[in-house]
C-alpha cells in the first residue's frame, strides 16, 4: 500500500538521524560508565547451553560463503581422492606438500571448539615429526642434496613451531571454554605431544649436529619453542587446579556460613587449609554436598600425574646433560673452568639437584602443586640452559677444533638475546682487558 510505503519512508528523513558528535561522545561516556560499574566483575560465565550456542554460532559463521571457503570445500572433495593419499605422504619441499598443509587447514576450520582444535594441532605436530624424521632418514640421503635437505628441514621446523604454538593458544582458549577435567586431560595430551617432540628433536640433533650446522640449529630452536609451550601447558593445568580449589573453597564457605553462621572459626581454618594443602582441604570438604568433590579429586589426580611425568622428565634431562658435560669435560673444560662458566658449574652439583627433585616429589604428594611446579621448573630450566651452552660448545669444537676463550665470548655474545636465560647472557661478556689476561694465562696449556 502506498500508505505503508510512505510511512516507512519517514525513517529516511535526515531529521531523524542522530548528531554524529553526540553519538560518539555518548558511546564513550557509556563505555566508561560500564567499566566503572562493579557489575562487570560480577558477570558470570556463560552457562552450558549458552556455551553450546556460542560454539554453534561460531561454527556456522565459519561457513558463511567466501572464496576461501569455496576453496576449502573443493579441498574437502579432493580429500577423498587418491591425490590426497599421496599428499599425506609428502614432506616439505615436495610438490604435494602445500596440498597436505591446506588439507590440514581445512581440518582445522571444521573443528568445533578449542578442545577438538587442540587435538587436531597435536595431530599435526605428529605429522611434522614424521616429516622431520623422513627428511633426515639416512636412507633418503642419496636422493636429496644438502641444500634441499636444509631447506626442507627449515620449513618443517617452522611449521612445527607454528603448530606447537597454535596448540598452546587453543589450549588456553579451551581453558576458558571447557570444564576443568576436560582441560586437564587436554593438557596431558599436549604434554605428551611436546615430550615426543622433544625426544625426536633431541635424537635428530644428536645424529645431525656433526654433519650439518644449519639443520642442527633449526632443530635446537624448535626444541626451545617446544619447551616454552610445554611449560605453558603444565602451567595451565596448575591454574585450572587452583581455580577448582578456589571455587570449591568458596562453595564450602558459602554453604557453611549459611547453615551455621556461628562457626566462623571453622570456615577460617578451612580457608587457610585450602591454600596450604590440597589433601587436607579435600578431606575437610568431603562431606559437603555443595562441593563437587569428584571434580576436585579428578583434576587433582590428573595434574599430579602430569607433574610426576615432569619430574621423571627432568631427572632424565639431568642425566643427559651430565653425560654431555662429561663428554666435553675430557677435552676442553680445563680451559673453561677458570672462566667460570656458571651454568656448567651449576650442573656439576647434581646431588643437590636430585635432592631438590625429591623435595618436589614430596610437595607433589602433599598436594602443594604450584610449589612443586615452581621447584621442578627451576631445576629444569637450569639444565635446559646448560644444555644450550653445551650444544654451542660442541658446535664450536667441531668448527674450530678447540675452544678458545674468544670463541666462548662470541658464543655468549650471540647468546645474549633476551629470550635466552639471563644467566648465560651475563655469563661472560668480558671487556678486552680481561680477555688479554685470560689469553696470557692460557697460552701455555692448549689442547689440540
Amino acid at each position, binding site marked *: 500500500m502506498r*500508505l505503508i510505503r510512505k510511512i516507512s519512508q519517514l*525513517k529516511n528523513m*535526515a531529521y*531523524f538521524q*542522530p548528531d554524529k558528535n*553526540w553519538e560518539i561522545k555518548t558511546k564513550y561516556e557509556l563505555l566508561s560508565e560500564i567499566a566503572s*560499574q562493579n557489575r562487570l566483575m560480577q558477570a558470570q560465565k556463560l552457562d552450558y547451553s549458552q556455551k553450546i550456542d556460542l560454539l554453534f554460532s561460531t561454527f556456522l559463521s565459519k561457513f558463511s560463503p567466501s572464496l576461501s571457503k569455496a576453496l576449502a570445500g573443493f579441498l574437502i572433495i579432493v580429500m577423498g581422492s587418491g591425490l590426497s593419499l599421496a599428499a599425506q605422504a609428502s614432506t616439505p619441499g615436495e610438490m604435494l606438500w602445500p596440498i597436505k598443509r591446506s588439507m590440514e587447514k581445512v581440518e582445522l576450520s571444521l573443528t568445533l571448539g578449542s578442545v577438538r582444535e587442540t587435538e587436531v594441532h597435536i595431530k599435526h605436530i605428529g605429522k611434522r615429526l614424521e616429516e622431520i624424521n623422513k627428511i633426515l632418514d639416512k636412507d633418503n640421503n642419496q636422493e636429496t642434496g644438502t641444500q634441499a635437505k636444509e631447506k626442507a628441514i627449515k620449513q618443517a621446523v617452522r611449521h612445527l613451531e607454528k603448530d606447537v604454538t597454535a596448540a598452546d593458544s587453543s589450549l588456553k582458549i579451551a581453558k576458558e571454554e571447557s570444564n576443568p577435567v576436560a582441560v586437564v586431560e587436554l593438557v596431558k595430551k599436549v604434554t605428551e605431544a611436546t615430550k615426543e617432540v622433544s625426544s625426536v628433536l633431541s635424537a635428530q640433533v644428536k645424529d645431525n649436529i656433526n654433519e650439518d650446522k644449519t639443520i642442527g640449529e633449526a632443530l635446537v630452536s624448535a626444541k626451545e619453542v617446544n619447551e616454552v609451550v610445554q611449560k605453558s601447558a603444565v602451567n595451565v593445568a596448575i591454574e585450572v587446579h587452583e581455580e577448582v580449589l578456589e571455587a570449591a573453597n568458596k562453595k564450602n564457605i558459602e554453604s557453611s556460613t549459611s547453615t551455621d553462621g556461628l562457626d566462623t572459626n571453622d570456615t577460617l581454618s578451612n580457608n587457610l587449609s585450602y591454600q596450604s594443602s590440597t589433601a587436607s582441604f579435600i578431606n575437610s570438604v568431603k562431606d559437603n554436598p555443595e562441593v563437587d568433590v569428584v571434580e576436585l579429586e579428578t583434576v587433582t589426580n590428573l595434574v599430579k600425574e602430569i607433574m610426576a611425568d615432569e619430574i621423571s622428565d627432568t631427572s632424565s634431562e639431568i642425566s643427559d646433560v651430565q653425560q654431555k658435560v662429561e663428554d666435553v669435560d675430557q677435552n676442553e673444560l680445563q680451559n673453561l673452568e677458570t672462566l667460570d662458566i656458571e651454568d656448567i658449574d651449576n650442573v656439576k652439583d647434581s646431588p643437590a639437584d636430585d635432592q631438590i627433585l625429591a623435595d618436589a616429589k614430596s610437595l607433589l604428594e602433599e598436594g602443594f602443586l604450584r610449589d612443586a611446579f615452581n621447584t621442578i621448573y627451576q631445576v629444569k630450566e637450569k639444565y635446559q640452559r646448560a644444555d644450550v651452552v653445551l650444544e654451542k660448545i660442541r658446535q664450536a669444537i667441531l668448527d674450530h677444533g678447540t675452544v678458545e676463550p674468544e670463541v666462548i665470548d662470541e658464543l655468549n655474545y650471540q647468546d645474549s638475546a633476551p629470550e635466552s636465560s639471563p644467566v648465560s647472557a651475563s655469563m661472560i661478556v668480558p671487556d678486552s682487558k680481561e680477555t688479554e689476561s685470560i689469553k696470557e694465562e692460557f697460552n701455555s696449556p692448549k689442547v689440540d
Partner: protein
Amino acid sequence: MNSLKSSLQEKIAFLKLKSGDSDAFAFFYDKYVARIYRFVLIKVSSKQIAEDLTQEIFLKVWQHLVDKKDIKSFQSFIFRVAYNSVIDHYRQNDRQELPLDYINENEDLVSDDALTLDDKIDSTALLEKIRELKSEYQEVLLLRYIESLSIDEIAEITQKEKNNVRVLIHRALSKLKEIISNNK
C-alpha cells in the same frame, strides 16, 4: 547470505555481551543507536530529550543484561526498554510536543536528496497525522513500518498478544487513512 553471517555475528556478540564483554556492547551500540534515537525522537519530538533518553536506554540495557540471563534477542530487548522508557517519560512529563513548524525550519529536511519536494511535504504532513493517533497506534506503526520489526517482536516489546498487535496495526492504518482523507 550476508544476513545469515551478520545475524550469526550478532548472536555471537550477544552471548559475549551477556558475559560482560564491553566490546560487544560497543558493537551493539553502533548497530542500534540510530534506530533507538529515531524511535524515541518520533515519539518525543525534542532532540535533546531523545538524546538523553537514548543514553539512558543503552545504560539500562547493559544493567538488565548482566542481571538477567534469559533474554533471547537483543533487538526485541532493546526496543522493549526503549518502548517502556518512552512511556515512562510521558507519564512523568505530560505530552509536550514541539509544534511541527520546528521540523519545517530544520535545514536537514530540505537537504534530503532521497525525497522529492512533494515527498517531503507529504512526510511532514504524514508525521503530523500520525501524531494525531492515539499512542498505542503510533507505537505499533512506528515499530512495524519504520523499524521493520516482526509481529512477534512487537508482541514481545509491547507485551501484547500477537493477534492483538495485528489488530492494532490494522486499526491504526484505517484510522490514519481516515484522518488523512478527512483533512483533504
